[in-house]
């Protein structure tokens, strides 16, 4: 089974973010970056499928979202976890786009690879769009199942059965392969790269592809192809100052209930 996993490098989740002077992006200087947490579930699942079947290949793909980021590091982390090879999509022409142009680039890259299964995280925790994977599947004309927290692969029948989290329950979805799945927490416990894994990763192939490699016209990608423009970034609206309700527990609780009823009018 050939599995391609797409990972994104995102700012570490505890980062303090500032808005850049142009106002429509974050300031990346001094930030540390990690593999998007949901993408780790995708990498782990790919490795487990390969281990279970005893055969196959796991390729990791990443797109450099911004010239200030080094997704090579994210790719090496995934190779150290056990993936076989990595591809970096690297071209200034890819920058400045939106989710749709990202999906366009990824779909074009996938078309140059043979695969049975594409795995991504359910969303990247930077843009929080949760759209790119689904759009890649649509552009490739293959089915998708999003937000998967349990997966069975039937290699012989070339189908997969996935559990997808919905409000108040799960949908059990069956799909023919090839298919694209986006991974949710609960699917597995991602492994940490081992020291031998880290050593081996240095020898594993890391190819670099640009716009010409994947054969896309400049007007379809980057800012030129984007359907969306960021007008500005802004901090979330400040929350009105809160207050600590003083007193013994019984007094404080009585006052809290009064405030919730009379001031906030909630109960």
């Amino acid at each position, binding site marked *: 089974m050939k599995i391609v996993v797409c990972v994104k490098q995102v700012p570490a*989740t505890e980062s303090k973010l500032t808005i850049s002077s142009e106002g429509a992006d974050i300031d990346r200087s001094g930030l540390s970056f990690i593999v998007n947490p949901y993408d780790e579930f995708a990498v782990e699942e790919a490795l487990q499928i390969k281990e279970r079947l005893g055969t196959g290949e796991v390729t990791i793909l990443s797109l450099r979202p911004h010239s200030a980021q080094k997704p090579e590091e994210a790719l090496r982390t995934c190779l150290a976890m056990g993936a076989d090879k990595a591809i970096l999509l690297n071209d200034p022409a890819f920058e400045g786009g939106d989710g749709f142009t990202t999906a366009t680039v990824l779909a074009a890259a996938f078309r140059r690879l043979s695969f049975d299964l594409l795995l991504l995280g359910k969303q990247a925790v930077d843009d*929080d769009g949760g759209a790119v994977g689904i759009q890649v*599947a649509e552009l490739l004309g293959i089915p998708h199942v*999003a937000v998967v927290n349990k997966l069975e692969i039937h290699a012989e029948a070339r189908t997969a059965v996935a559990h997808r989290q919905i409000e108040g*329950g799960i*949908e*059990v979805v069956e799909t023919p392969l090839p298919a694209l799945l986006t991974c949710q927490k609960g699917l597995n416990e991602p492994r940490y790269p081992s020291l031998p894994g880290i050593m081996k990763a240095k020898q594993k192939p890391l190819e670099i592809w640009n716009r010409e490699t994947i054969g896309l016209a400049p007007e379809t990608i980057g800012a030129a192809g984007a359907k969306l423009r960021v007008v500005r970034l802004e901090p979330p609206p400040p*929350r009105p100052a809160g207050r*600590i*309700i003083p007193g013994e527990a019984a007094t404080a609780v009585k006052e809290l209930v009064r405030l919730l009823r009379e001031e906030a009018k909630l109960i």
Partner: protein
Amino acid sequence: MANPILVFCEQRDGRLKRVGLEAVGEACRLGGAAGRPVIAVVIGSSVAPLASEIASHGASRVLVAEDAGRRYYSSETYTALLTEAAMRLQPVAIFLGATAMGKDLAPKLAARLKTFLAQDCVALEMEADGSILATRPIYGGKLRAVVKATTPVCQVVTLRPNVFSAHEPKPSPDAPVERLTITAGAGRPMAVVREVQEAGGGKKELTEAAIIVSGGRGLKGPENFKLIEELAAALGAAVGASRAAVDAGWKPHSYQVGLTGKTVSPQLYIACGISGAIQHQAGMSSARTIVAINTNPNAPIFKLATYGIVGDLFEVVPLLTEEVKKLKAGL
């Protein structure tokens, strides 16, 4: 006439999701000045009776795509139906709820139409030419992005539940109801929902709840979640959990609020024994009113809280449950 706004009104088992009606209300507000009709689409196996309910919340027309084979959601079929509606009606925008279904359907639809997509929006404005300015939380709510389409055609937008206002229902007997059909199946390979497994126990869904009571590490063990559940029952609230409580195995992942869990926007969020790490804040900072109960006065949750009680949750929570019960009983 100005191009309409199309609103997908999600239903499961013949019941409309509230967020669809909220989307109709927001579409009426945005489209009102330009006289844009608000046209709703409802898809399912037995959904015709829902048309009047949707119309009563402000839709000027309702398209019904009813088929006995549509008991379950299908991203492929739903995309084909909404694409058909979009081709026919040339809407300036298409609104969906930012639910499991809406967030699955919207990207596929936008990719098929090759148009703008803004997911999980918390504020919307519309310019005279129909361009939408969509505000959406990013980086786990640490920032917000205001985004705009390069072309104001079929802008696909999902709206976060509990943020926008539905209109009060009033009878609207004149709103036309039409059938929406697609002729040929595209013959594409499809993922098919075989079964829906309910969580059971009448569990209230976090993302739709008006009130949420959440428990964290401070509960010290799974057995103590009953304190949270009792308070939730008294308030008619849903139960949530912090990542620490989920990672400890005290509650399944479907309860988790925060960065690798659910994002919620209730009217009232009561955090019990939760310190309020940035990863937790990512899931709940847009709650309207936040109550924090924690022994540590320096816990970050108190920076967010509207009302805080510094105290032992094992003492405070049962007292709160009692007070709420008394209030509800009219004592």
